[in-house]
């Protein structure tokens, strides 16, 4: 009986002493294997008197179970330890840079365009399109700028022939849309696109630039509606809390016409270098669609009215991002393009 106890204690000790899984396997063989110590104890049972056999057998079984349980437990422990050691060996330098999986960029002008599009799509506007090589008729005549009108000076034009030109403003698209509508209201659209004027390129002038105009025609559309709409736009584009200021101006296709200032987003209207101390930044031109324009396009100016506005995308981008030279947009230096890797 003591022998059993002796073997069990010896086995348990060996189990605890096994420092890795290999050593443990040797212990298992030594005690639980076919030729192991515990199996050998069973062999000794033969020589015992019959009546002692059951008790002895039971004791050996208990011993076997306990040794087995201890082995299993030690096995788990050592496995855990082995995994931990392996993982430790796999340690990496997490400070090394990640894979350079770069996304591309959208051109800042297009980003501004899309921002304005999304803003107005959300208000039920559609996006109009039209040709850049345009007829004088749509660019000027229908926009209430007949030949020899002084306002043609305001936008010196790239003519191709006497009737064809590179559009000087996206108003040409408005005129096409008005004509297409054949007097039917409501009309709610914006028309973004490239436009061209005979300007020498410098830090603030470009012979090619982008505009986005908006047009709403319906019953009882008011100048106050224009103000509300532009206020909404300014708040979305330059941050909440922006105020709008109208100043009288002149465009041949609107009456009344206004220049629109937005309260300076950089100093909150207190006055800074961006707004030249005035607290306001001129941002766009707008007005009520001229009744003659409505009539030329087949609308009854007694029954309906409308507003229109136009914003220069370069101007917005330059203000928003503090860009000081308009030529950057067309040089496309990658270092410049990569600054605009997200919407802001």
């Amino acid at each position: 009986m003591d022998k059993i106890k002796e073997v069990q204690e010896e086995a348990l000790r060996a189990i605890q002493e096994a420092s890795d899984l290999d050593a443990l396997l040797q212990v298992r063989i030594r005690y639980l294997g076919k030729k192991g110590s515990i199996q050998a104890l069973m062999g000794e049972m033969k020589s015992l008197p019959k009546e002692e056999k059951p008790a002895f057998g039971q004791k050996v079984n208990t011993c076997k179970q306990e040794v087995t349980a201890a082995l299993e437990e030690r096995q788990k422990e050592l496995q855990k330890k082995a995994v931990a050691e392996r993982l430790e060996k796999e340690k990496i330098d997490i400070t090394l840079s990640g894979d350079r999986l770069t996304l591309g960029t959208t051109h800042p002008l297009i980003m501004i365009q899309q921002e304005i599009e999304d803003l107005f799509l959300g208000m039920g506007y559609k996006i109009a399109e039209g040709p850049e090589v345009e007829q004088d008729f749509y660019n000027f005549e229908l926009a209430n700028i007949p030949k020899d009108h002084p306002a043609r000076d305001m936008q010196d034009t790239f003519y191709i022939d006497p009737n064809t030109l590179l559009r000087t403003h996206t108003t040409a698209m408005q005129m096409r849309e008005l004509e297409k509508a054949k007097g039917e209201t409501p009309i709610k659209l914006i028309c973004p696109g490239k436009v061209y004027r005979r300007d020498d390129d410098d830090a603030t002038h470009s012979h090619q630039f982008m505009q986005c105009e908006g047009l709403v025609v319906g019953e009882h559309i008011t100048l106050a509606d224009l103000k509300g709409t532009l206020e909404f736009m300014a708040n979305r584009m330059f941050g909440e809390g922006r105020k709008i200021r109208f100043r009288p101006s002149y465009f041949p296709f609107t009456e009344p016409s206004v220049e629109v200032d937005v309260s300076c987003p950089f100093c909150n209207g207190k006055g800074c270098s961006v707004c030249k101390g005035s607290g306001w930044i001129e941002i766009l031109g707008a007005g009520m669609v001229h009744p003659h324009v409505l009539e030329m396009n087949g609308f009854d100016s007694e029954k309906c009215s409308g507003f229109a506005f136009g914003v220069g995308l370069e101007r917005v981008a330059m203000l928003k991002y503090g860009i000081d030279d308009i030529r950057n947009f067309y040089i496309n230096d990658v270092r410049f393009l990569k600054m605009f890797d997200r919407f802001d």
Partner: protein
Amino acid sequence: MKLSYKWLSEYVDMNGITPQELADKMTTAGLEVEGIEPMAQGTNLVIGEVMECWNHPDSDHLHVTKTRIGDKPEDVYQIVCGAPNCRKGLKVIVALPGAELPGGTIGNKPVRGQDSSGMLCALFELGVDKKVLSEAQLAGIEELPADAPVGERDVFGYLGLDDTILDVSLTPNRADCSAMWNMAKEVGAILHREVKWPDCMDRINDGTEGTFKVASETEKCPAFTGKVVGHVKVGPSPKWMKDYLQAAGMNSINNVVDISNFVMLETGQPLHFYNLAKLPAHEITVRDDIEMKMTALDGVEFDIKKGDIVITTGGEPTGIAGIMGGEESMIDENTEAIFIEAANFDYASVRRTSIRLNLLTEAAQRFAKGVEPMAMEKAVARSVELLEKYADASGFEKTVFCGAKNTEERIVKETLTHCNDLLGTQFTMDQVAETLKWLDFRPEISGDEITCHIPTYRTDIERPADIDEEVIRLIGFDTLPSTLPYMSATVGRMSAAQNLRRVTRDVMMSFGLNEIVTYTLVSQEYIDNAFLPLENPIALAMPMSEARKYIRSSLINSVLECVQYNEAHQNTDNCFYEISKVYGKDREEERLAVVLAGSLMKDRLHGIDTKGDFYAMKGILNALLDRFGLGGTRVHINENKIDTVHFHPYRSAEIFLGNQRLGVFGELHPDYAERFDLKRTVYAEINLDLLLSAKASHVKFTALDRYPAVSRDIAIVVERETPAQKILDVIRRAGKKLVRNMEVFDIYEGEHIGEGKKSVALSITYQAPDHTLKDDEITSAHEAILNELKKQLNAELRG
């Protein structure tokens, strides 16, 4: 325009309104004041006299003076002066110590050891515009007249420089305000103050019956007014008139010429005064059917063409109407009698002629912007008054006239309701009527209706909306509420094409490409080297430069130029795309250009290098087409047979959608790349219109595979020229429906492979939708495939 504050005060009481306040109010009302310039600036100035003047002992150009500014002993100052014209007895402008001048504060300290208390001034040192000063005035101190009052502290008042000039930017519809009288009315309406015009209108009727005849043979001169003045005395103009002309940026010539200019500035009517004695006949006829060369004042010849309005007298042309008079009949110091011309010429015609002849005279510019019909009479009447007063004029003949008098005032009716409706305001009738009254619109109210009598100079007021604009701009835009349009709901939605354009940008961005926007206008060279250009390139009628002469017919050169710029600025791996329209005479087309110069993705640390090669481009285009729902069997990649000038003949391909060519992609031809200093560069230019308008397949669910797939790898040896696609086609057909997928994973040429051959390793995946494939099924399919490969392509299974 340059607006003299002092001159304005002649018509409107400006008491209590500073130039700055006036400028602010005008800007708010739509007459934008862009600058406020005092004619001269400086404090602590006084008129003095140089009593003594000697050379500075330590300088070769400085003088030391004793200058007195009064009669008492303490009124004598020692002042050092550097001007060469400084001398004893000269009356001068003295800036006393502490004086604030544009250049700084005047001190009281020795100059090279000599005491100096103050400064003797030149006018430009007092901020007077150098353009209006003579060379002598620019070279030294101002020399005041001998009778200048010593001790006078209002120096600017004495000099007529006590004025402030507002630089007003007039919108084209308010050309009327370039006439002082009309500007005064506008200011009166802004300030709610009375405006007084000189009371001279009845002077138009002065004079006795004469013989001078005027006629117009063209509708481009609808009215012509003239008047003979039998006697004038040419001499200097009064000082105030010189001052006002100077304020307006004009030089004084003599009293008669000055009056013609002054009256033009007042009334807006360009006038021409003829030396009556030099007119060959007492007759003027306006014509527009003359073709000739005309020599102008400075000997330059001008081509007069049919359609130009010409003034003739006695059958001979004497001037280009509204633009320039003839030299013969110019007013000079000997002129004794004159003929006044005040006519109305078609603005469009004057504009065209003056631009063509590059004669942008003051008169031409005023005619080109439109002159109001009543201005002729105002100008003649005012001329009579001023000539009599300042040029001893007499012997007036009756005003002669031809054409139609168009002086009927316009009536415009508006209702308060419509006005408030358009503006979105709630103005009262009193507010609106008050505003219109100050504009001299003489509003008559009847219930809701307002009848306005529009003064003739307000040619811009034609419709109710014009009245509404006057109301809101003068009451003030700050009273305008903010609302949103109240109308039936509309759906805001992008068109399919607009949506797909954004999809294109998303795909390009996800592959790391940067979007560029380049100029539409390009050079002849770019047009000559365009890629698949639209036919008949469009040239500008009047380009600004050779570099911007044509509207581009393809994108390639603009895009490569952009890569060239970036490479030159040490930016590497330049992978860009641009979406833009290109043009030919008969049509436009939207294109997508993609350029890969370097790697799409590169990371040496982690061993990543996605080179921007032919296959990268093909992958990008495939991904784009898949995203458009156009992938699969509709897309064909064929050998590039259309353009091997821009493209490498063996590393480029045409891409088709069905039977429509989308474009070409591949490596640039090294010769072409070299033009832009580029190395291996891959480019694609694709017709986006075809993609945006193509009908995409619908997204459709198919059941997931339930039975296992089995893959078999093979390596076959084929002719080097055999395209991989051909091998895949054979396998697909031979494998019937059991081949689920194929993937080429290696191409090998060289050792152990015969000359002119290549080894293609590929993996074939077998799978059936309805049962687990048995070994013999797979084996028989596989062998059928190998047999077909052998039969069709002479492919040997590699051992």
